[in-house]
């Protein structure tokens, strides 16, 4: 059982990743989408949960024309779409600072997807949610 954690701000997410490591092993952390995607494709079967940030560098995989995408404001949304193409039933936690109502609504409508804003959670609280989610699976 592996939890895949993708967030470009490694230093700020360290406490969350460590807390997850203590409770749910192993946690594989990636700070950019290209390597994360490679890992996901190769290890898809053993990944039980993905924790995904939204605002990240677009990497090579999202070399899009749209300004907003190139600026990295919605990278996680595109990554989520790619995940769903391969694994429609894999639980995904969107763990982000993004707060626009459209983004929230978009993910709330998704199945097997939980939208959580970073600012409201301490690492211990976050891990409790992850544990609960994995227990329900």
């Amino acid at each position: 059982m592996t939890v895949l954690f993708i967030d470009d701000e490694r230093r700020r997410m360290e406490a969350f990743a460590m807390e997850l490591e203590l409770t749910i092993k192993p946690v594989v952390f990636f700070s950019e989408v290209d390597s994360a995607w490679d890992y996901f494709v190769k290890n898809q079967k053993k990944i039980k949960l993905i924790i995904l940030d939204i605002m990240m560098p677009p990497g090579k995989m999202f070399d899009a024309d749209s300004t907003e995408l190139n600026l990295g404001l919605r990278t996680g949304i595109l990554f989520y779409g790619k995940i769903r193409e391969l694994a429609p039933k894999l639980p995904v936690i969107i763990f982000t600072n993004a707060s626009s109502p459209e983004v929230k609504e978009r993910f709330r409508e998704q199945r097997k997807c939980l939208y959580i804003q970073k600012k409201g959670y301490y690492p211990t609280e976050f891990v409790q949610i992850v544990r609960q989610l994995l227990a329900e699976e």
Partner: protein
Amino acid sequence: METTAQGGLPNQPAPFGFELISDLDKIKKNLEPEPAKEIVPLPAPDSKSAVEPSQGKWDVPTEVWGQDPPPNLPQRESLKTTLGRLRMKAEAAERRLELVFPESLENFMANLWWMTEQGVDEDLDVLQRIKDNNPYPTRDVEDLLAIAQSTIRKRVNDPDYVVKNGEEAYELHKDEWLQKFPGEFVAIHRRQVVAHAPTKKELWPLLKEAQKERGPFRAYVVKVGEPITVFRGPMRMRGRRFL
């Protein structure tokens, strides 16, 4: 298997540890209860001299510490909210600092993304400062700076934000403003009083003057000393967008 009284096999030394517990007298002595010690209870607190807990929202009953509080304890929620707010402020301060003194382009971009989603009115000054002295003058950074600025401007002009921010500022500066503007109406913008007058009628022209100087903005209007909320929203009058 045969064992000796001291433990161990016949004609062999007792293994370590067995000899220690073989002395039954010693064990018995150790098991005898000690004479009861007298415990003198602490004097009951004098109700007159006892320190009265303050009634502020920081108070959490002392009996709560060290045990699981009931799930809906209001003080617990209040403390959690306060701590959360402090954590947010600390993160915002840290990110502002990192933007002004960036470690790397990646870090700089990450902080700009955060500003776009979470930035508040104070961050507009920081962003303007960065725009004037951009450490990474690329097209992407300039575009992202522009997006961050326009998103924050939109956010801080949102009626909910104006009310929340105005109320917070009023609570914070209430004592000071009670001395400076007793009984007056004050217009609060970006946590500062931008206009004040004894009546609302007198306040509007002053507020319009402030809006001319600073550009269009929404202000939270309150009568100092009275918790009356008067929200001054945008209006289209005589071709002007804001009054």
